[in-house]
């Protein structure tokens, strides 16, 4: 789980490295990835610690067991003979291998296989959902939004597809403005659009900076400083 999270964040950073460099977001991303990495490392260390305890028990258990057996036997008045000692030792060695190694390994690998199969099953369900979406979609996506452009700094994008009313509404922005921080000037203003499943959104404006401000950036990285309701679904 932790590895997945780290891999996802790393691939996002690598994909959008030009944006990260351009806006100077290196430090927040480094701290985010370090936090995830530390938590992953903590889990790995915990698993190794438990494994070390298992191995410790595995190595010392036969000697303690044999000592206890012979002590009780001797105190009950028994006589220690060579066949008795050696056969008992080999019995205990078999038990040590079975309980100390195989039994603990069985618990360990069974729980891992259980967790793995749950994870794979989650992805398989996701693939099945995507396959259903695949089947329900038309072969070519129609351009959903016709952008209308107003002079800078305000860029307004509005419009909706004629056949979009039947589709699932994913994102609705009403009079939205976006800025990198609360004190910074807004880079996008008076944004009104509805986004349905299967639609394509384009924001057109002067300068290549606006090309970075597409939908993936409607995330907490940007601060919405004015505007009405923001509704996310799915």
């Amino acid at each position, binding site marked *: 789980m932790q590895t997945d999270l780290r891999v996802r964040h790393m691939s*996002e950073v690598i994909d959008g490295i030009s944006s990260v460099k351009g806006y100077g977001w290196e430090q927040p991303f480094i701290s985010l990835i370090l936090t995830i990495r530390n938590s992953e490392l903590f889990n790995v260390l915990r698993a190794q610690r438990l494994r070390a305890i298992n191995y410790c028990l595995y190595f010392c258990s036969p000697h303690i067991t044999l000592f206890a*057996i012979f002590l009780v036997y001797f105190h009950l008045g028994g006589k220690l003979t060579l*066949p008795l000692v050696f056969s008992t030792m080999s019995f205990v060695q078999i038990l040590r291998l079975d309980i100390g190694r195989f039994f603990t390994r*069985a618990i360990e*690998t069974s729980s891992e296989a259980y967790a793995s*199969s749950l994870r*794979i*099953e989650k992805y*398989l369900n996701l693939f099945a959902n995507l396959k259903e979406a695949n089947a329900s*979609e038309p072969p070519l996506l129609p351009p959903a939004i016709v952008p209308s452009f107003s002079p800078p700094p305000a860029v307004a994008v509005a419009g909706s597809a004629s056949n979009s009313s039947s589709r699932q509404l994913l994102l609705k922005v009403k009079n939205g403005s976006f800025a990198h921080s609360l004190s910074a000037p807004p880079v996008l203003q008076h944004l009104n659009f509805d986004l349905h499943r299967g639609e394509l959104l384009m924001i057109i404006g002067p300068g290549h900076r606006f090309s970075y401000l597409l939908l993936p950036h409607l995330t907490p990285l940007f601060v919405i400083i004015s505007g009405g309701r923001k509704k996310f679904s799915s």
Partner: protein
Amino acid sequence: VNPLISVGITRQLNFEDLLQLPSHDHSSPLISQLKSAYFHYSHSICGIPRLLLALCSTVWVQFLLVGFYYLLEGLLRIFSTILLGLFLQSLQNTDQSIDQSFVLALLLSLANLLQNFIHHVSFFYSMKMGNNMKIATIGFIYDCLFEIRGNLLQSSGISTGQLVNLISNDVQRFEEWSVVWPLSSFSLPITDSLLPIHSSVSIFGKLL
């Protein structure tokens, strides 16, 4: 010697020289078996995930075979330990002839040899079972992935790294599990219940 090695030292091997895989170990029947079993179980039973149930029902014949070998190995281990005790007893007992000790030593050697042989056979079959489970799961994931359009996959937020993690790390767990799974199901309960009973009787039985 492996026939591949005897051919390989004379000339370069090509694809036709490679050993034929049995038909039930081919990936396509394994994947179709796993798929049909997976869709047969609509939900998990007693908390066991669907995929695990499907995998178990795909390899259950191999599982029984491996379990049988592990059981045989466990029983041989107990048998050789009993033989060791008898052998040492016969060496200490000066009244008996030396022939009996030789017979016991021979039996002990044979039991150990057989146990080693069976251990390798059972390990081979369990690894093969784990490999089959791995191949079937990877094939299943690939099959599902190929049915989805690329742009949908990208928009769903599943990255290549996650998928690689899925088919390398997660699937590897099944292979590791397959080595101890039949052992813990067949050999351990029987040997671990027989051994303490036998050893306590043999050690403390004389005192009673």
